[in-house]
């Protein structure tokens, strides 16, 4: 039986963004019921017990994060909604905000009720102008209907939602970069600890959650834990630290496919199924060569590489929180799947990747600022046909040494810059070596100069 979407159930309806239609479909009944019948702690418990893990990239258990807030804090406590969505090739938050903003807003209201926050800052990347205006209209509708503001529906619960626009910088998606940017400063990520739950926006306890995570909160509170856990992948019994990959997931498909689009499926579909059954297959009758399984930071898979003791290849890994890690990628990331066909040069792909991270490094940490810069210079020289034999080892060396994981930087951008480099070179080494040896220039070698910091 084909999967019936829940998060995307309403997006094709006319005027799906309006309050009237959302209410007609049962919207805000869950929130009203929570106000009347549930204690905040019960909402936290339900989200925690559902096994929901954050959809913003790190996969941290959502309910658990909420319990890190100080107990009996006098307030204020803030929610920051992370709608910076700038991980390349990711666009599912955009669809939720443009087409079903009330589903996200109901999740925000439930979350704030749960951890007793009276203020949510909704940080939307500048490039999402349409989403921003749709959200603003939706928030206005809620104030007019008495569902936001003081003493909502006579319950004693007060909540304001403030929409805040970014200004075109990827690093504002990193949770403490977002907070600094919100506060009106340079978006320089903070050293952690303290984590935002202890000291976040305006030095107050703060929860940062992704848009899709909050849409999941709405559905978990509406449909219950059993529904959520009936979808996806249970924890790996051989891995005591695995929290499982439950629930529905919005996958975005991009690149060399016939039908790039956002689809909702139970967590755990393989890349092959996603591309062939939902993305219309690889375009122009070609074959896939490489795939980026979850946003550029996650690295690359080689479609031809066989898995150990199996006829399956890296193309067959499941897209759950563990799958990409099994083939030496960083993780599921944003579940944004980008397909690269067999007519494309990996030198160009890698150069494009390095260009992004070099442009977006905020420059605070020397290994990240210099490392991303050097990786771009080296890949640029490779695409100009001037690559050197030692370049590949230098690239892998740099990629291995920058990042939080080796402990040299403040935030995860540097890790994200390293993974695509080391995976591309380790998995496609022969192609890179041949390109260096032949001295062939990329067809793009002339275009696009290297320009400053974001």
């Amino acid at each position, binding site marked *: 039986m084909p999967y019936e979407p829940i998060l995307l159930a309403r997006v094709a309806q006319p005027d799906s963004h309006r309050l009237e239609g959302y209410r007609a479909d049962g919207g805000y009944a869950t929130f009203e019921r929570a106000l009347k019948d549930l204690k905040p702690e019960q909402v936290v418990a339900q989200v925690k017990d559902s096994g929901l893990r954050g959809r913003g990239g790190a996969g941290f258990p959502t309910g658990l994060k909420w319990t890190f807030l100080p107990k009996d804090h006098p307030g204020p406590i803030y929610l920051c909604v992370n709608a910076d969505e700038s991980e390349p090739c990711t666009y599912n938050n955009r669809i939720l905000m443009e087409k079903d903003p009330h589903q996200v807003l109901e999740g925000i209201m439930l979350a704030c009720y749960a951890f007793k926050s009276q203020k949510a800052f909704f940080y939307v990347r500048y*490039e999402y102008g349409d989403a921003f205006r749709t959200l603003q209209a939706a928030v206005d509708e809620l104030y007019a209907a008495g569902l936001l503001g003081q003493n909502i529906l006579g319950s004693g619960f007060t909540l304001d939602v403030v929409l805040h626009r970014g200004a075109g910088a990827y690093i504002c998606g990193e949770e403490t970069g977002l907070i600094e940017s919100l506060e*009106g400063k340079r978006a320089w990520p903070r050293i952690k600890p303290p984590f935002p739950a202890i000291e976040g926006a305006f030095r107050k306890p703060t929860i940062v959650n992704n848009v899709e995570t909050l849409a999941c909160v709405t559905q978990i509170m509406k449909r219950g834990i059993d529904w959520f856990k009936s979808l996806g992948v249970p924890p790996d019994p051989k891995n005591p630290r695995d929290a499982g990959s439950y629930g529905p997931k919005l996958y975005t498909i991009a690149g060399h496919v016939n039908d790039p689009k956002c689809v909702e499926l139970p967590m755990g579909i393989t890349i092959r199924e996603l591309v062939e059954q939902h993305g219309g297959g690889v375009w122009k009758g070609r074959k896939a060569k490489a795939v980026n399984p979850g946003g*550029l930071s996650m690295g690359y898979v080689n479609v031809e590489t066989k898995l150990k003791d199996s006829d399956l290849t890296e193309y067959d890994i499941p897209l759950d929180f563990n799958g990409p890690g099994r083939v030496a990628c960083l993780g599921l990331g944003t579940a944004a799947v*980008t397909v690269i*066909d067999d007519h494309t040069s990996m030198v160009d792909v890698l150069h494009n990747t390095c260009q992004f991270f070099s442009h977006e490094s905020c420059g605070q940490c020397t290994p990240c600022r210099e490392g991303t810069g050097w990786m771009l210079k080296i890949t640029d020289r490779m695409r100009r046909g001037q690559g050197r034999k030692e370049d590949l080892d230098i690239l892998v060396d740099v990629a291995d040494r920058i990042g939080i994981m080796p402990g040299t930087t403040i935030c995860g951008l540097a890790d994200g810059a390293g993974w695509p480099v080391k995976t591309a070179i380790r998995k496609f080494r022969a192609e890179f070596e041949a390109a260096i040896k032949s001295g062939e220039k990329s067809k793009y070698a002339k275009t696009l100069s290297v320009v400053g910091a974001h």
Partner: protein
Amino acid sequence: MLSEDLKNRIRAYIPMYPRKQAVTLPALHLVHDELRTVSNEAIVEIAEILDLHPSEVSDAMTFYEFFKGEGEKLGKTRLWVCRGLACMLRGAYELIEHCEHKIGVPCGRTTPDGKITLEFAECIGACDGAPACLRDDKHVMNVTPEKADELIAELRR
């Protein structure tokens, strides 16, 4: 230099945040949208409204390459062409070259008649319509060279 109306629109944000400094980005956006630049004088006036030192406003502003400062000015429309991976795979680099050629200025520059500022962008989150552009802050998807020509002609009018 900022009109009283513009100042009032900036002030209207103050009650929404626990600290005035948080109004820095909203204020920069308001000024930048309307005046197509944020001059040094405007920075001083924003700082006055928000009880900040001008260097604090300037420090935040210059972090974002987004804002044009003293001596720079945006055209009437800002046209961004995405160069992200999904767009590159579907012809973005060719599209950037095409637009630079048609508009007659390289990325980062404004046409002499002040109508169009051309920019490149990192992934703008419209990869289902790659190659994609932003017209100010609205997505334009599946931009073929023909579609780009029509858009450019419209922006020139």
